[in-house]
């Protein structure tokens, strides 16, 4: 038997459960619920101003969360990369360990802190400042996202900074650059691929999430992921929810692929190729 036929079972599997389902999304997005005929109604509904508003809010929150992750994650990665390897190994592990907890539990942890009876409010009451509304706010969702995805920013930046030869920095210093110049002209530009991959690693999940906003933002605080989930599981098949949901999913996919295209453009060197092992 020829070796290439070893792939046959997987090819069938892939056809049925990877390729066909993707095509099904397109089909659902462009057909009516009642008659199954071609229609642009679903796309039109998906572009309704109410839904677009949610889309903008999702993008906006994702941008803010990504920016905060970068502002906090870059210095962490930078400091880690300048430590002795042993200390850096231990500290970077410490930053990663929380990631091994399920993200729902990590999000739930913040409910304990931000709740009306939560830790922060108890501190405020103890200080005589009264309760603050912390849950079900934009801020709560942003905190949840930053907390969940910060390590996604630290790791790629740390990896690239750590691989950077010290001679690069020394050369810049020898040529008379001060610390600030060395950083802005040499270190930061060289770490850009790591920064870009960190940005996508944070931006894509924050824009597609639905559980974080539901848990920390309450039911009124909808993001695009919630919208899609809602169409599928609450509106349901008979009311055309699957069709509109499919159209919304197509828009989300388009958005994600644009992000990926931008990343690939910056990452031509294929630095991350084969990181799986």
């Amino acid at each position, binding site marked *: 038997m020829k070796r290439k036929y070893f792939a046959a079972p997987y090819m069938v599997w892939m056809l049925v459960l990877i390729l066909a389902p993707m095509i099904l999304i397109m089909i659902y997005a462009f057909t009516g619920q009642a008659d199954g005929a071609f229609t642009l109604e679903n796309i039109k509904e998906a572009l309704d101003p109410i839904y677009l508003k949610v889309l903008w809010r999702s993008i906006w929150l994702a941008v803010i969360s990504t920016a905060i992750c970068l502002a906090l994650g870059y210095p962490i990665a930078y400091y880690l990369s300048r430590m002795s390897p042993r200390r850096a190994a231990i500290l970077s592990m410490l930053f990663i360990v929380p990631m091994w907890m399920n993200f729902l539990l990590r999000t739930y942890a913040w409910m304990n802190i931000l709740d009306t009876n939560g830790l922060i409010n108890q501190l405020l009451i103890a200080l005589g400042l009264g309760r603050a509304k912390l849950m079900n706010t934009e801020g709560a969702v942003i905190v949840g996202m930053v907390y969940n995805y910060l390590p996604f920013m630290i790791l790629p930046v740390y990896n690239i900074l750590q691989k950077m030869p010290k001679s690069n920095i020394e050369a810049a210093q020898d040529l008379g650059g001060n610390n600030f110049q060395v950083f802005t002209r040499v270190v930061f530009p060289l770490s850009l691929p790591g920064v870009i991959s960190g940005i996508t690693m944070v931006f894509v999940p924050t824009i597609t999430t639905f559980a974080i906003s539901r848990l920390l933002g309450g039911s009124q605080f909808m993001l695009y992921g919630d919208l899609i989930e809602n169409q599928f599981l609450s509106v349901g098949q008979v009311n055309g929810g699957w069709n509109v949901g499919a159209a919304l999913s197509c828009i989300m996919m388009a958005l994600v692929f644009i992000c*990926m295209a931008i990343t690939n453009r910056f990452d031509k060197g294929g630095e991350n190729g084969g990181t799986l092992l």
Partner: protein
Amino acid sequence: MTKGKGAWFRKTFLGVMLFFMYAPIIVLIVYSFNASKTMANWGGFSLNWYDALLKDRDIMAALEVTLTVAVLSSLCATVIGTTAAIGINSMKRRWRNTTMYCSNIPVINPDLVTGVSLMFAFSLLAVPQGYTRLLLAHITFNIPYVVLSVMPKLRQTSNSLYEAALDLGATPSVALRKVILPQIMPGVISGAILAFTLSIDDFVISFFCQQGTQNLSIYIYSLARRGINPKINALSALMFVVVLALLLTVNILGGKGSPEAQKKRARKKEARMARKSGTLVLEENTK
């Protein structure tokens, strides 16, 4: 800026960030021992919530679903994925690239879209709701990771060893088992481990196959949506301790926490994260 001042700032910043990472987990664990049901007051130390957790049939059933799905799906995905990788590796370049491209769709796609697309497929194919759907979904999203971790090892194997085995009288299937398989074994094992952890950790894709069955993450979500529940605190605390113990054991057994071992695990972690965010720059496409 003097050097001393800089070091002080650096230490404070890292300290504050570590506090940010761990404070929520510590609060979670502390309140799991609170006798009172609300967080408003501390009712004294108690293990009531742990007791309630272990007596909760739903949670135990969900745990069983999570563990069996993780074991079965990672086993199936490892077998299918490894044979597939061997097959794909011996394809012509163009076919190989096309196949890898399709295989990577679930890696790149947001989980939400993968979940939705599988729900469509399952309902069209009339796959029975519940456990079957969950298992098939997990196998589906696990296979690409096994393929991705076996592939680089396959490319490193040299054909001459295989040919030497044939020259020495081995049949192709014996040569495959005795020569190729041992060489790619590290990739197979790390693929299996990756598949197992991905399956345990998954929420979004499972969520769309949830009717009729519940795994742990779905159960946690449905509880957490109703607000704070000390039982979840107890569950989180247990899970965190188990994870910590596992990590320490792996650390002590494997290389005593040498920087290389750490790095290896960090990379595995990164791969897992890459899967979630879908930014894995795929080896096949960049070449």
